[in-house]
C-alpha cells in the first residue's frame, strides 16, 4: 500500500488515526453521525445513533480521521474536486438551476415528506439503470432510522419521509466491498455530503470503490437530532408504533408535528431543539452543497420541494425526469429564493461565530480549511 492516508491535512501536516478521532471529535461531542469513519474496518461500528470503538486500532494514519467532516477539511480541495472551483462561500453553494418541484406520481406524493422529488429521482435512476441501488435511510417500526440499501421502487418508497434524526448512511456505503461493481446513488445530509466529498477527493483504499457512487442527492438541513436521547424523549410523548409522519413546518410555526393515527401531536420546537446535536452549531451548510441535486421543503407551498441542481450529472437526471413527465417543476418564487439564501447565509455566519467563540481566532476555524476570502464573505453575508 503506497497510498497516503489521512493526509488531507497538508496545511497542518498531521496524520492521525482512530485515537485522535475519539479525542478530537467523539469526546468533544463533534460527531455528526455521518458514518464516514465507520463500516470500513472492524474498529468503528455504528449502532443506535453512535459510533462505537470496538477495539483498539493502533494506526496513526487512518481514513476514519481523514474523512471525518469535523477533522480538518480543505474546503477548496473538496470543492475543486467536485465543481472545478475553490470554495467561494456562496450561501447556497453552486447552482445550475433552482426551482420548486413535486412528483407527478400520486403514490410517491402520498408517502413522501413534501413533494416526493428525491423518491422520484431515485426511482428513475434505478429504473433507467443509472444506478443499481440507493443508499438511504429507512425507519424501523419504532422510528429508529437505519441506513438501508434500496434496489427497487418498492424499497425506495419504503425509505420516503423523514424524522430529523441523524443516521450514519456513509457507514452503510463503507460496508460495500472494494470489488463491488454496484453503481450507487446516495441520499445525504450536508455533513455527509462534505464527508463524501472528502472520500471522492481521496478515494478509500480497502473499502467501497467511491467511483461507483454515481448520484448524490442532498437534503437541506438546519440541524439533526441526537438519536438515543430524542428517541427516549419521543417514546415518552407518543406511541411510536402508531406514528406515521414527522414534520417541522417552516417558520414561524416553531413546532414539530407528529402524525399519530388520525391525530397530529404538536411539540414546541424549543422542546425538540434541546436534542439538537452540538456539532450542528458548527455546520456551514444548509443546502447540502456537495451534491448533484439538493432538495428541501418549499417554504409556504405545501406539497412542493425546493430543488437545486448543482452538477451536470444532476442536470441530466433532472432533464430525463422532466422529459418523462415524472416531475412537475415550476420557477421558484423570488421571495422563496431570497429567503432560502438568507436562511442559508445566516447558518454560515452563525456557524463561523460559534466556531470562533471556541477557537478565539478567525484564522483557526476548527475543521474548516477556508480561504480568508471565503471567510470574509460568509461573515459579511447579509
Amino acid at each position: 500500500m503506497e497510498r497516503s492516508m489521512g493526509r488531507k491535512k497538508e496545511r497542518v501536516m498531521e496524520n492521525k488515526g482512530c485515537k485522535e478521532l475519539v479525542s478530537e471529535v467523539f469526546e468533544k461531542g463533534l460527531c455528526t453521525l455521518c458514518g464516514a469513519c465507520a463500516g470500513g474496518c472492524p474498529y468503528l461500528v455504528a449502532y443506535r445513533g453512535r459510533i462505537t470503538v470496538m477495539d483498539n486500532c493502533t494506526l496513526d494514519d487512518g481514513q476514519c480521521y481523514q474523512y471525518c467532516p469535523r477533522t480538518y477539511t480543505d474546503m477548496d480541495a473538496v470543492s475543486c474536486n467536485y465543481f472545478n472551483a475553490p470554495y467561494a462561500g456562496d450561501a447556497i453553494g453552486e447552482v445550475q438551476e433552482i426551482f420548486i418541484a413535486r412528483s407527478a406520481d400520486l403514490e410517491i406524493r402520498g408517502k413522501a415528506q413534501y413533494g416526493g422529488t428525491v423518491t422520484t429521482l431515485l426511482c428513475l435512476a434505478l429504473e433507467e439503470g443509472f444506478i443499481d441501488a440507493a443508499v438511504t435511510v429507512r425507519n424501523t417500526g419504532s422510528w429508529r432510522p437505519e441506513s438501508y440499501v434500496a434496489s427497487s421502487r418498492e424499497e425506495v418508497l419504503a425509505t420516503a419521509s423523514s424524522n430529523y434524526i441523524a443516521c450514519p448512511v456513509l457507514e452503510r456505503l463503507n460496508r460495500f466491498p472494494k470489488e463491488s461493481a454496484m453503481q450507487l446513488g446516495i441520499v445525504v445530509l450536508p455533513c455527509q455530503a462534505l464527508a463524501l466529498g472528502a472520500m471522492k477527493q481521496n478515494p478509500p483504499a480497502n473499502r467501497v470503490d467511491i467511483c461507483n457512487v454515481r448520484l448524490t442527492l442532498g437534503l437541506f438541513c438546519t440541524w439533526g437530532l441526537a438519536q438515543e436521547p430524542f428517541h427516549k424523549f419521543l417514546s415518552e410523548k407518543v406511541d411510536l408504533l402508531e406514528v406515521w409522519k414527522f414534520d417541522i413546518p417552516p417558520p414561524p410555526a416553531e413546532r414539530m408535528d407528529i402524525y399519530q393515527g388520525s391525530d397530529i401531536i404538536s411539540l414546541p420546537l424549543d422542546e425538540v431543539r434541546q436534542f439538537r446535536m452540538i456539532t450542528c452549531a458548527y455546520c456551514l451548510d444548509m443546502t447540502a452543497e456537495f451534491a448533484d441535486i439538493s432538495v428541501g421543503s418549499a417554504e409556504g407551498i405545501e406539497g412542493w420541494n425546493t430543488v437545486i441542481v448543482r452538477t451536470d450529472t444532476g442536470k441530466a437526471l433532472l432533464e430525463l425526469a422532466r422529459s418523462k413527465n415524472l416531475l412537475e417543476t415550476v420557477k421558484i418564487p423570488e421571495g422563496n429564493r431570497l429567503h432560502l439564501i438568507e436562511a442559508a447565509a445566516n447558518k454560515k455566519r452563525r456557524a463561523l461565530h460559534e466556531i470562533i467563540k471556541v477557537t478565539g481566532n478567525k484564522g483557526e476555524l476548527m475543521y474548516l480549511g477556508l480561504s480568508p476570502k471565503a471567510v470574509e464573505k460568509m461573515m459579511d453575508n447579509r
Partner: protein
Amino acid sequence: MADIDIDIDAPGEVAFLMGNEAIARGALEAGIGFAASYPGTPSSEILPTIAEVAKKRGIYAEWSVNEMVAMEAAAGASLAGIRALTSMKQNGVHVITDFLGNIVMTGTVAGLVLVAVDDPSGRNSSNEQDTRPVARWLGIPLLEPGDFQEAKDMTRWLFDLSEELKTICMLRSVSKISHTRGNVLLGDMPIREMKAYYDLERIARLANPIGHQELLEKLARAKEIFELSSFNHYTGPENPELMIITCGSGWLYSREAVKILQLERRVGILKIGTLFPLPENFIEKYLTRAPKVLFVEEIDPFLEPGVKELAADLPPDSKRPVFYGKRSGHLKAYGEQEPDTVIEALASILCIDYQPGDAAYEVEADKAAENHLIPRSGTLCPGCPHKASFWVIKEALKLDNRYGFVTGDIGCYTSGLGAGGFYVVKTVHCMGGGAGIANGMGQLGRFGFSQPVIAACGDSTFYHAAIPALINGVFNKSNFVMAVLDNSATSMTGFQPHPGTGYTAMGDTTDVVKIEDICRGLGIRVEICDPFDIDDTVSKLLELMDFEPIPRVVVMRHECELIRARREEVPYMVHVNPERCIGQDCGCDRLCTRIFACTGLRWNSETGKAEIDEVVCSGCGFCADICPQGAIVKEAVRL
C-alpha cells in the same frame, strides 16, 4: 491409567500407581461400596478409577452435581452401613464445611472418608489454600501421606479408623503426591458383605453440646491411636544438630535435601503422618533432642503451630529448640515447596555454602526458552467455543456502550479475565460466584448503577452452584443477564459427565437435565444461540441486556472443541488469501492476529500478511467470519 487392573487381587505385588490411583486402590482394598465426587484438579482421577471397576465389584460411584451433594450422598451411604468415600479439591472442601460441621457431631456408621487434594501454587485452581485447618477447626481426624504407598495404606486404614471412632476421617493429599507416580505394594482385596440398612434405633439428634462432647472424646481416642501409628517415625542420629519435622510431600523434599547436602549424620527427620490430633507424646519424645527444628510442609504452617503449642506445654526446665520454618522466613510462606527450598533453608540455618543450581545453566536455559517459545499470554484452545462466546460478548458490551462487564466463574472460561477472553471478565471467585455477584449488582440501580452485568457460567457450573443464585435473582427481581457458556462438558477437569451430558460416571445413560428447561421453569426469558453465529448471538445479547429488570438467560451452546476433535475431522480447511489480506493497513490493523489472537493464526512480519498455522488450527472457521476483508477463507470439509 495404572498398568494393572486397579482392583487386581494380588497382595504383595508392586504396582506403579499415580497418587490418586493409590488412594482409589486403598478405598477398594478397604471394601468401599460407595464413592461420590465432583471433579476438581488435582483430585479428579480418584473417582473415575473407582468408577471403572465399580460394576465389576458391585459398588456404586457417581459424579455428583457438586461437592456438597457428593459429601452428603457419601454420608448417606455411611449412615446406612456402607463404607463410602468422597474426594475433592480444596475449593470443594470449602463448599462442604457446613455439612462437615454437623456430621462430626452426629457421627457416622460405616467408614466415611473425605479425601481433600490441595493444589500448592494453585496451578490448577483459582486459589492456593490449605484444607488441613478444616480438620482442626471442625474436629476431624486427619492423615497426610508422604508417598504413594502411604496414599494407599492410609486411605485403607482410615476406613477402619472411621468405623472405630464413628466419625468422618480425612486424608489430605497435594498435587505432588496425587499427580505423580510411584511404586505401591498392593494389599489384599477382602470380600466384604455389604447390606445397606438404616438403623431406626440410632438416635437422630441435632449437634448440641452432647455431640460436641462426644466428638472431643472421639478425638481423644484418635490421639491415643495415633501415638502408636507407624505413619509417624524418626530417622537420623540420636541427637541431631537439626531436626526436620515434616509431613506429606515435605517428607520427600526433606529426604532429598538431606541426601544432596550429605547431612545424614547431622540432621534427623521426624515424619508425621497423623496430623490431627497430633501424637503429642510421640513428638515430645523427639522434640528436645535437637537444638534446632525446621518445619517442612506444603502451603500453610499447620504442623508448625501444632508442635509449637506442644513446646509451650513442655515442663519449664525443658530445653526448647529454636524453631525455623515459614514463620521464621526460612521457607517461603506461599507457593509449592521443592527440594531446593529445603536445601536453601538447611544451608542457611547450618551455614553451609551451597549453590542450589548452576547459574550459567539457568541463563542458558532462559535463552533457549526465549528462542523456542512463542511469546503469548494465557489463552484458550484454538476452536474453543468460549473464545467465540467472549468475542460476541465483547462485541455486544461495546455496542451497548454502558460499560457493561462479565462477572465470571470457574472453568476454562475463567481465562476471560485475560487477553484470551478479551478482558471482558472482571470478577472471578468460586463456583457460582459470578451469578451471586451479579445478584448484588443487579439491585444497585437504586444507587445509580447502570452498567449491564452478564454473569457467565459454564454448563457444569450452572448445575453446581449457579441455580440458587438464579432463583434468588428471580425471587428478588435482580437485574442481570446470565450467560451459560454451554460447551456440553466439564472440560477443564477432563470431560467428566454432568447432568447435561446424558451419561453417568459408571457409563450408564441417563435423562438429560436441560438448562433451558430449568430456566423456563423459573418463568424467565431464555434465548439459545450458537456463539459461532456472531450476528444472532450479539443481537440476542443486546436485546437481553435491555430486557430489564429480572434475570434473563442466554444459553450459548457449542460443543467443546476437544470433544469434537476426538470424534471427527475438522469442519473447515482454513487458509489466508494473501491477495486479500491487508495486514496492518487501514481497514484491518491485524484484527485476527492482534485482537482475536487465536493460536492457530500467525503474523508474518516479513510478508505483512496473516497466516494459518496448520498444525495448531482446529478448522473452526471463526476467524474467517470476523476477517474484515474476507481474506481468511474457510472451506467446508464435512457436508
